[in-house]
């Protein structure tokens, strides 16, 4: 079954520095790390001490509330350091890689259609955390049965990797991964969300339900795809997984050896030659960025500029990140007549029409920096969020219900259907510079507390 959905509301933020179609090997890294902070709401419990020997696939820590969900080492070596932050919160578990390349043997499921066996293999290998759930956008709970499993095969975020390029040559692994995921939803076919601009995924029309999406960002957000095809009601759960991780699941379950490969796009206006890099989950940022950045004060973001995390070169690529974006820091004050609020602004990209750039051709790209471009204010302008928010949900009213902590209203207005990333464009566009994504996360946290 194949259908087409056109997304009208949304916007593509046209940034300079998209990756060219070249795939490079990342520099050999010696340190890898898994960061418990990549998993919202997770309380990690360490399983190893510093200095312990690990193989690829050896559990490093598990979820305190759900010990069967383990997080494993992406490489063989030794646990080099456990980095802690305030209140001894665990930030990173660093593994110093050795050259032995030994790996834990993962029990392969005897059949890809056995839910129990597939689940066990995914849990013991440490691949389970790649499967996340809506509502809340957290790691899926193995005890749930999702009403569907979604894979958004493309990202529509600014400078996102081109899925067709990244997935080249992964046909059989992707197919195996799809059947494993089907088993998890009791044989229901996986819902594949496909970009109208790609065609690599269309070969799986027999293995999955394919929906083609036309339109601007956030058409590639899994939240939008769920909302448009099978919207979530209170009490329901759907799971989702990134396409590259479906490949890892397929490879691991067919070979019995953990696969955590990742192709990461290094993009942005401050990258000298944007390209794709073949690396592993948990690699250090500098294995990709060294020698590839332009001079100057810039910000490295693990992920896309709308939702990613600020990192530096010594940090590690996020667990779910498929791109590293580097943009200039905007920490210089701007004189109001020459570059500030009263300047014509020929270099400012805006979703409002208050800058002359709105008439520039679609091919014109911009090098945006991290300046807020104004100060935080109360809600004044209306209609801005609605223009970039393709849900049948009233975004401003939902945000306001969260600000006043009205749980009943949050539920009524559809908080179960959204995640912070769905509000990223609202946050971008906001005249009053309100940090909407943080507010949505607060609201989701409040609701999660209610369920405990």
């Amino acid at each position: 079954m194949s259908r087409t959905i056109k997304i009208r509301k949304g916007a593509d933020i046209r940034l300079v520095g998209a990756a060219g179609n070249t795939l490079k090997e990342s520099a050999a890294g010696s340190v890898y790390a898994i960061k418990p902070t990549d998993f919202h709401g997770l309380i990690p419990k360490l399983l190893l001490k510093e200095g312990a020997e690990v193989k690829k696939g050896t559990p490093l820590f598990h979820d305190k509330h759900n010990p069967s969900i383990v997080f494993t080492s992406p490489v063989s070596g030794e646990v080099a350091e456990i980095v802690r932050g305030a209140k001894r919160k665990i930030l990173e578990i660093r593994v110093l890689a050795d050259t032995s390349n030994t790996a834990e043997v993962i029990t392969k499921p005897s059949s890809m259609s056995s839910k129990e066996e597939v689940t066990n293999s995914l849990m013991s290998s440490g691949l389970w955390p790649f499967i996340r759930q809506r509502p809340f956008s957290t790691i899926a709970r193995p005890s749930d049965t999702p009403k569907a499993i979604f894979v958004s095969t493309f990202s529509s975020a600014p400078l996102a990797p081109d899925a067709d390029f990244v997935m080249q040559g992964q046909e059989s692994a992707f197919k195996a991964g799809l059947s494993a995921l089907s088993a998890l939803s009791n044989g229901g076919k996986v819902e594949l969300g496909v970009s109208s601009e790609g065609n690599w995924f269309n070969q799986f029309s027999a293995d999955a339900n394919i929906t083609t999406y036309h339109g601007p960002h956030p058409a590639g957000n899994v939240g939008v795809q769920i909302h448009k095809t099978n919207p979530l009601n209170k009490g329901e759960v759907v799971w989702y997984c990134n396409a590259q991780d479906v490949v890892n699941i397929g490879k691991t379950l067919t070979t019995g050896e953990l696969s955590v490969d990742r192709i990461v796009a290094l993009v942005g206006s401050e990258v000298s030659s944007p390209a794709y890099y073949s690396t592993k989950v948990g690699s250090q940022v500098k294995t990709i960025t060294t020698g590839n950045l332009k001079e100057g004060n810039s910000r490295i973001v693990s992920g896309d500029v709308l939702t990613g995390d600020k990192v530096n070169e010594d940090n590690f690529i996020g667990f779910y990140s498929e791109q590293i974006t580097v943009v200039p820091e905007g920490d210089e004050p701007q004189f109001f007549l020459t570059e500030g609020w009263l300047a014509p602004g020929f270099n400012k990209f805006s979703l409002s029409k208050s800058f002359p750039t709105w008439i520039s051709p679609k091919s014109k790209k911009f090098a945006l920096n991290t300046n807020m471009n104004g100060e935080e204010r109360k809600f004044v302008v209306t209609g801005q969020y609605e223009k970039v928010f393709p849900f049948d949900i009233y975004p401003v009213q939902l945000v306001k219900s969260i600000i006043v902590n009205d749980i009943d209203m949050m539920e009524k207005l559809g908080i179960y259907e959204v995640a912070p990333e769905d509000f990223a464009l609202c946050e971008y566009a906001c005249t009053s510079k309100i940090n909407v994504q943080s507010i949505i996360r607060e609201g989701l946290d409040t609701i999660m507390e209610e369920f405990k």
Partner: protein
Amino acid sequence: MKGLHKFLDEKIAPPFKEGGKLRRFWPMYDALETFAFVPGHTTHKGSHVRDGIDLKRTMFLVIVALIPCLLFGIYNIGFQYDAILTEAGRIDWLGEARHATWLEMFIYGAPMVLPMVIVSYAVGLGIEILFGIINGHSINEGFLVSGMLIPLVMPVDCPLWMVAVGTAFAVVIGKEVFGGTGMNILNVALTARAFMFFAYPTKMSGNNVWFHTGYSDSLAAAASPNVIDTFTGATPLGLLVDTPDGATISSVIANAGGGFDFSLWSSFMGFIPGSIGSTSVLMCLIGAAILIATGIGSWRIMAWAVVGGALMGGFFNYLGTLEAFADNLYLDIPWYHQLCLGGFAFGVVFMATDPVSAAQTTRGKMWYGLLIGILAILIRTANPAYPEGIMLAILFMNVMAPTIDHYVIEGNIKKRMKRAKLAIA
């Protein structure tokens, strides 16, 4: 400009910063600094890049859209004075037997309007700064627009002290008590006008306030030696309140006086007496074009208000043909002429679209606009005590806007509940 910023930061800012002597006055300094320099604040999480627009630019663009109305308003004061002279049979200007040039008319009007603008900004911003200092919050840009709107909705002969009192009332009671910009329920400029309308009715409406008849000081006296001390004249809408039996619209227009032209064309262009900035539909349309092109004003509200006004005007035109309503001349004003009279266009373009006090949902904006249009013409036509209805119509709909939004959102909630029930069944 880096040097200037460094100077500000090193020489001027320290006493205002944490621990400085003038710490309390930080909001004042902050307002000035952020006016001159968009701060180097960067994002921390969430979206790392942000849209170029901010509230300052938004508000500034509204002021740009108001400038045609302001300039025309200034000019129109001189134009009306020339019309009075003509009416009195004295075609003279600067001692010559001629009409004033457009520049002379403009120069005649400027000394009346600019002090009002200055008073309105001084009082309003002064109060904003005071509240900023008391509450320790930074000063919001909302008043930049209100400060321009207030003088534009005043009659020309309104004394400056009244502008000051009205502005103070609107900013304190209309806005600050609710929490400042973004939290007010009513449009601030209309709150000022409504307050003055009810507190000083003789200075805000009637026959004595729409004209400025010469300056008493020597300079201006030289400009127009044949000063007419008093002149009584109503706006076109006011004129219709008191008409002899058997009068018709065309007879009233024809008898408006030698210097006056209340025809449709004249009302559209704005050569009629009225509140300073609101007479010219053409200038309001230019403003509307700017607001819509920049995406700052809601075209939905404007369009639906015009639809509402036209529908109501058309309905009254129909009633006017009936025997029972023969003596209400307002019913006979053609609906398209209705839309060009009074402050309808100005209110719809600049006041109804105030995003804070308007309906916030897309569908809500439709009803909000439509009802403003209907009510404005209804009040104007059915209640001769208020020949201008747009002010009350917008204020009333400001109050009703949250209710409209409530029902729109309720619809969305019901849809979601229904879907959930289907899923269970």
